């Protein structure tokens, strides 16, 4: 299995891309969970998704 990027992930529907960005921006601005826990979850999710960004 390749660990390199398989396709250009920026080259998809621009409306969808922008909407996903806005959704993520809104989610990270939620403040009911403390910052340390939030960051631990974020890093765990990044590892699970093999995300290096």
């Amino acid at each position, binding site marked *: *299995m*390749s660990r390199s990027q*398989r*396709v*250009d*992930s920026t*080259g*998809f*529907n621009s*409306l*969808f*891309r922008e*909407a*996903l960005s*806005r*959704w993520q921006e*809104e*989610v990270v601005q*939620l403040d009911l969970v403390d910052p340390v826990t939030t960051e631990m979850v974020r890093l765990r999710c990044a*590892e*699970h*998704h*093999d995300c290096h960004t």
Partner: protein
Amino acid sequence: MRESTSEFFERVLGGRTRVVKELGNIHDLAWEVTDKEILGLCKLRIAMILGCESEVKSMGKQLNSLKVSDLSQWPTSNHFSDLEKSCLRFTEEFIIDVASIPDDSAFAIRDDLGDEGFVNFVNALLVIEQRMRLLIVWQKMFEGVKV
């Protein structure tokens, strides 16, 4: 009348209207940028794997009944096209172990839909999966009922 998934999210998220709005936007767009029948099959397969009975029931009514009845045996069924099978294979791998999806699974879809179509499909799948996981967890937290 049964509360829809969108209505449930609005109720749980309360005054967080911008999050509600953006969650709705990405869900609507997920269906616009992909083949609805294929995404519907993948959504039903996700619901079956995650044990989301409300979505299994809901999606089961919207799709071809022959495909619905054969969905758990899609690899050996004659009711699915090669692309549908590729998408279902990818979906199962995505749900079970997203970091270990074989190249062949990804390339089979990319070769058919192209780079943009493939990325649209994967992002749509992500939206569907996240939304369903939220539904499962929040229903258990806030409703105490079987999902």
